[in-house]
């Protein structure tokens, strides 16, 4: 099979998975609960009946022929759209980018779900990318050192870090970091970070005194916008604000990646071709970085799909602990008021990201490893 045929097959599977997932999430949010419950979040007592009815129609649960809101509430015949009809309508809307109104950021039904979600999403993306970055630059070297210094001090330290990463509750790690840095490591009478959530304004390692000027929101990602608009105080401050959340998010995956790299590295180092490379008189560093690492890194590549899923999920907890203004933080608020529009969009966007990453990873893997056949 050729590569494009493999990719085509995977794309088909991907569409199937996403469709099945949309059915699952639709059933969970709208099929399991009576339509009035799904609607409840989006109406307020102040609304008059016709306004309530039009909200119900917009949500796709009430038919256009339904005479009144009270008829809908009493689930009168012909008033409630059957579930499969709801699904079809919902899917059509969803594909057109029409995800209805959301309760967030707090006032009932004032903004579209799509807009609210994607104005918050860049913050989550920034956090997840920073987490992935930390995972790679800390986890992989840790694994290599652990394998090359097997059963020596670096190995023990690395194993402790990875076991600790596996075992530590993320929310707790984040809280401890906050306690340490904000409460106890005091500099000039104030904490390292200001209480102001993302952008620190009066702390020592921040760009002190400089008030961030106008920020052009190119991408919505603070770090990127800071560079693009050449506003270095803003860039620096957002970077500082990112450190602790990103480290909290990455702590578990650092452990996982270093474990995988360690074991595959040790396996590779036992191979004959490594012995051959050594017997040729190559320097140990050349052997390790030129010959061994390339092959040892492959298993780590395969789990990066899982890593993305893990980081996007972990972001929910980290955002809550650090009051990060991303979608994860918002999802809890949405869950508490049963804002199903927001939850559905969140789940499906995340799923698309994960599925696409998995596909990309498999293709890259196939390119990296000539032995792979599809």
């Amino acid at each position, binding site marked *: *099979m050729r590569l494009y*045929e493999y990719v085509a*097959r995977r794309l088909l599977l991907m569409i199937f998975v996403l469709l099945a997932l949309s059915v699952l999430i639709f059933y969970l949010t709208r099929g399991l609960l009576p339509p009035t419950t799904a609607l409840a979040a989006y109406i307020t007592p102040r609304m008059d009946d016709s306004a309530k009815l039009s909200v119900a129609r917009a949500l796709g649960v009430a038919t256009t022929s339904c005479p009144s809101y009270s008829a809908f509430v009493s689930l009168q015949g012909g008033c409630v759209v059957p579930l499969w009809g709801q699904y079809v309508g919902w899917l059509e809307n969803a594909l057109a980018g029409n995800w209805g109104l959301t309760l967030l950021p707090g006032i009932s039904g004032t903004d579209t779900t799509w807009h609210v979600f994607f104005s918050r999403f860049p913050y989550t993306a920034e956090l997840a990318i920073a987490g992935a970055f930390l995972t790679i630059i800390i986890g992989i070297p840790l694994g290599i050192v652990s394998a090359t210094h097997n059963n020596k001090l670096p190995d023990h330290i690395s194993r402790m870090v990875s076991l600790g990463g596996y075992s530590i509750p993320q929310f707790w790690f984040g809280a401890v970091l906050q306690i340490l840095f904000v409460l106890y490591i005091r500099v000039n009478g104030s904490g390292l970070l200001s209480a102001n959530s993302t952008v620190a304004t009066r702390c020592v390692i921040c760009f002190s005194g400089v008030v961030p000027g106008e920020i052009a929101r190119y991408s919505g990602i603070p770090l990127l916008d800071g560079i693009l608009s050449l506003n270095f105080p803003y860039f620096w401050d957002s970077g500082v604000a990112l450190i602790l959340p990103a480290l909290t998010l990455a702590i578990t995956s650092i452990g996982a990646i270093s474990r995988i790299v360690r074991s595959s590295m040790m396996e590779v180092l036992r191979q004959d071709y490594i012995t051959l490379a050594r017997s040729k008189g190559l320097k140990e560093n050349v052997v390790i970085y030129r010959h061994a690492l390339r092959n040892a890194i492959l298993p780590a590549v395969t789990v990066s799909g899982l890593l993305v899923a893990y980081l996007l999920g972990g972001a929910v907890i980290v955002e809550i602990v650090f009051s990060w203004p991303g979608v994860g933080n918002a999802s809890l608020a949405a869950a508490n008021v049963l804002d199903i529009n927001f939850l559905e969009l969140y789940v499906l966007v995340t799923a698309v990201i994960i599925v696409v990453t998995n596909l990309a990873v498999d293709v890259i893997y196939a390119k990296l490893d000539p032995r792979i056949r599809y």
Partner: protein
Amino acid sequence: MTDNNDYLLRTENLFKWFPTRIGILSRTVAYVKAVDGVSIGIRRGETFGLVGESGCGKTTLGRTLMRLTEPSKGSVAFEGTMISALKGSRLKPFRRKMQVVFQDPYASLDPRQSIGSALLEPMKIHRIASTKSEAKKMAGELLEKVGLNTDHLARFPHEFSGGQRQRIAIAIALAVKPSFIVLDEPTSALDVSVQAQILRLLRNLQQELDLTFLFISHNLAVIRQMCDRTAVMYLGRIVEFAETKKLFENPKHPYTKALLSSVPVPDPSKRRELGVLQGNIPSPVAIPSGCRFRTRCPYATEKCLNLPPPLIEVERGHWIECHYDIDFAAASKVEIRPRAT
């Protein structure tokens, strides 16, 4: 090949093709023709040899006979019943009569099952012993029969040597009191000294229990020692078939000849008429047209390229698939006679 009610097992034009699927819709683009039209008959009480290079399909033939894999076409008859058409529970009585011993004695035993439990399991499946104590007694007897003792019942496979494990595998096969056993290279993973013991054991068991063997091997010496009649397999087909003695003394097919001449002979004065086989065995996906041996045959002609060779009886009970009657026996000189067809 001749009709005879003495046949315990017969195959009629048996095929086993494995499809190679590719693409989005898994369309079949080619077949691996592992067994490509085989008709053999195994007589009650004999040891039927099946010899050929690795990859020629002899193991697949054995598996298809045993119904471990579905035949693609053709039939297998065991004691007159078409077992190739049976399914599920109707096949089970025949499973009891046919057993198999595999090449690798290390992998063919469940590592976490004690020898005793492995011996009791087939009895449980086929409800052979009426009580548990009777079954245990039978298991002990089986072990003694293959040259081990009852103490070994409590042990696990990893505590035994290769030869002992093969004895255990034989004992397990015997547990259901079969009449037919497929021996798939039973000695090729063993040391030479152990090989001889296992072969002797098999011969004794055959006499004692009135067993019929299909003996699959690539080892010509073992085949010669063990088998009454022998078939030579090449790329999924039987190319020559005769009584073992005749086959070894006077091979008729150039492939058999080449195989035999590759075995070192004790007397160097006996000349080898045919050199070592040239080239590799072709892929069973793309079998050569006409005669499948023609790509490696020193005598191949135009006819071999175009026509599949006929099956002919050159002497009584000696069959070959070849266009020509090649007389290797004509002292040191190979004589090729076109056959009148």
